[in-house]
């Protein structure tokens, strides 16, 4: 397991596209100390290697397709209603390519 350091926590937050205050990072670092000990409770369980990871409580696979029924699309005004930056009927963002 990767060692928990302040750098690792900063890196994780950065990958998640947010930042925290230094005090918040310190709180999180302290929380990890308890969390690591709680995670050891899983480490104690024997016989897990032969088990498949459980992703859902039951099999919920659906092997049929819905009928291909045409539906009215969302009106443009509605679709853009919740966006905070809109120009000429499109969501406006900073240029990606210069």
């Amino acid at each position: 397991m990767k060692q928990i350091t302040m750098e690792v926590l900063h890196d994780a937050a950065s990958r998640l596209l947010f930042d925290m205050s230094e005090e918040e990072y310190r709180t999180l670092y302290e929380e990890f100390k308890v969390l690591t000990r709680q995670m050891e409770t899983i480490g104690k369980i024997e016989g897990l290697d032969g088990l498949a990871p459980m992703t859902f409580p039951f099999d919920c696979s659906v092997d049929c397709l819905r009928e291909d029924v045409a539906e009215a699309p969302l009106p443009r005004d509605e679709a853009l209603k919740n966006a905070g930056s809109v120009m000429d009927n499109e969501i406006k963002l900073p240029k990606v390519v210069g």
Partner: protein
Amino acid sequence: MAYLDLSLHDIHAALLAKKVIPLALTQEALARAKADKNNAFEFINEKGALEYAASLQEPEKENVFWGIPYLLKDNFSTIGIPTTASSNILNGYVPLFDATVEAKLKNAKAVLIGKTTLDELAMGGTGTTGHLGKTFNPWDPTHERMIGGSSCGSAAAVSSSIVPFALGSDTGDSVRKPASFAGLVGMKPTWGRISRYGLFPFAPSLDHVGFFTRNAEDSALLLNLLSGRDEHDSTSSFKPVERFDSKIGQSIKGMKIAVIKEITDSISNEQLNASFLKSVRALEKEGAKIEYISFGRDLLESIYATYIVISCAEATSNDANLDGIKFGPYYGGSTYQEVMFNARTKGFSELIKRRFVIGSFCLMRENQDVLFLRAQKNRAKIVERTNEILQNHDFIYVPAAPGVAPRFADSSDRLSDEYLIADNHLALGNFAGLPSITMPLAFIDGLPIGVNIMGRAFDETGVYQLAAAFERISGLEGLSVLNKKEGKL
């Protein structure tokens, strides 16, 4: 007693007899909602509710939901009504569609009074992390005690008798634990029984729609209405919808019930243990066969860590769409990454960020095998043991929490068995997707405590049969802060 304090059947009878009309019921519910002192609400739907209630004229004999006021937790999508999941990153967001459960309630002509507050994005168990602050437990007028979470507002509103029922969501125990602290019936049916279309996802492999009522029968009636396959949710079940109230009132003689010994052993509260034991004796007197069994202490102790790893990891990816671009406040930036960075830094509270970092840490390449995949394998092991018990027993019966609602200032030893086992075992129902209901048991110093009944997958009818029998034993049917009872246990 006002009509709002009655059961669904009794309110319905009054509506059919035209002793009360939906508009009057709605006005009363709105007046109670506006007088709320427990911080239960994100939004009160005054205008919409009054207009709709006024349009309801002819009662529908077979529809017990006709004209009944209700509330939704603010993580259900409601067309035209602001929905924030109590997170600043969704401030101002107004959904363009209804969640399936809301569509079903609308179709039944129930009246939406408002949206209730929650722990931010439903991630939390204290009712303290939403963007409107703490939600208080109505049973404690000094406002020193929590009601639990994440469905804190719905629990506070139903126990204050503002409405007869309110919907919540339950990923670890977010309906069933607050129900215990609020003296309510809190149900989480089988995973897949109710469509989750329009419920903001937290951890989809664990998320369930749940609800609060003040008696078992109302809960069963609500499940009758809300369950069923939904093409909008591929994980919803094809199982036929039963009449889940059909066995209410029937004897429980011969039912085989398991009590998990490690859970009762880990509870230090002697009054709770005494009331629980009294309830065991009372169930035996009704003919149930109760056996104390061992689950395995190590496995029970590992529930909390397994839950945290899986839920935080799933949340981390699910909430990647909260970027401040398509919805939510826009804070600008010189690149699109900076736009997202600014929105997420300002929009999420500290607790949510910490949960996301924990999830991200568990998913890092170096950690995936030892943390995330191992937690998923341990979940399989825990579920295997749970189902093994339910092969030989019809139900599992345990205290829902280790005591009364904690004070905001209380702290607990997070490595103790009382915390790891007694305070977190309800996640068993989420891991295995089993139907699980909390019922009020008794009072300690004027504060409610609860028990939990868990049944086999898709046996909600049996769960309600036992829950209703338990209600007769406890004498706490219809409990609220406006309808206080002593109970028999």
